[in-house]
């Protein structure tokens, strides 16, 4: 392996590092090498934007407030709802 290629992250390294960078601050020298790779590599640059978008979508308020999952989403059973209602009634003053 040449000297240069050892300095440059592979795309496979990058996928892991881009994920890590979303969770903690990486050392400066790693961040710089990531930036160099991103300047040269559109696939990794795109991957980074996709991960960011996924996070942004999920963290937007609307995502959490949505009511309807897909049709087969799990629901509380009628019995469970009844149990909860009874418990709530018994705690009411």
């Amino acid at each position, binding site marked *: 392996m040449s000297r240069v290629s050892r300095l440059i992250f592979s795309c496979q390294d990058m996928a*892991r590092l881009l994920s890590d960078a979303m969770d903690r601050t990486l050392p400066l020298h790693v961040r710089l090498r990531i930036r160099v790779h991103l300047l040269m590599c559109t696939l990794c640059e795109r991957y980074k934007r996709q991960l960011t978008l996924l996070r942004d979508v999920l963290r937007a308020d609307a995502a959490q*407030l949505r009511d309807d999952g897909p049709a087969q989403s799990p629901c509380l059973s009628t019995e469970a709802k009844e149990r*909860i209602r009874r418990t709530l009634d018994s705690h009411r003053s």
Partner: protein
Amino acid sequence: MGDRGLSDSHSLVDAHGDFLYRFALLRVRSPDVAEDLVQETFLAAIQGTYRESGETAERRWMIGIMKHKIVDYFRRTAREPIQNPNQPEGQATDEGFLADGHWKPDPAAMHRWPDKPDKLLDQRQFWDSLAICLETLTPRAAQIFTLREVDEVETEKICELLRITQTNLSVILHRTRKQLRDCLSSRYFGETEESARS
């Protein structure tokens, strides 16, 4: 009747029960525990002071309560070792890469994603695809991913709550993000790109 603004307890269960149940189930992975958490959340809600009105504000408020209940639950159960660190879950994935570390050519990965989330938020089809992609994750990965990406829990805290190492967590998050990216690319963005062009 309850505090001003908060629906009475029965309609509260009708309005938010299923939502909170799914919210809990995604994180704790046990129907019984999820049901308990829903009940605890409602109990805290009817005993708390709530001054706003409107169903959205009410729901946001209850999500806040439930997040606390979920963290409490993890605290209580943290003693149980949830996984063996040598499990394959802790191994990095080579999928999607060539032997030299470059991305494998993948037509699905080439689909264009929007830059901002705004356009996606209202699209039913997107959320359906996302829900289906989340279903493909292992329960463990879905739980960890949700705590981190949706609930914004810091990684140190997740490691502490679930008794896993930072390295383990990092690998699981990396693998899960990539899996979801791949799944959404082929399932959602691939189709919309074509329909947008036609």
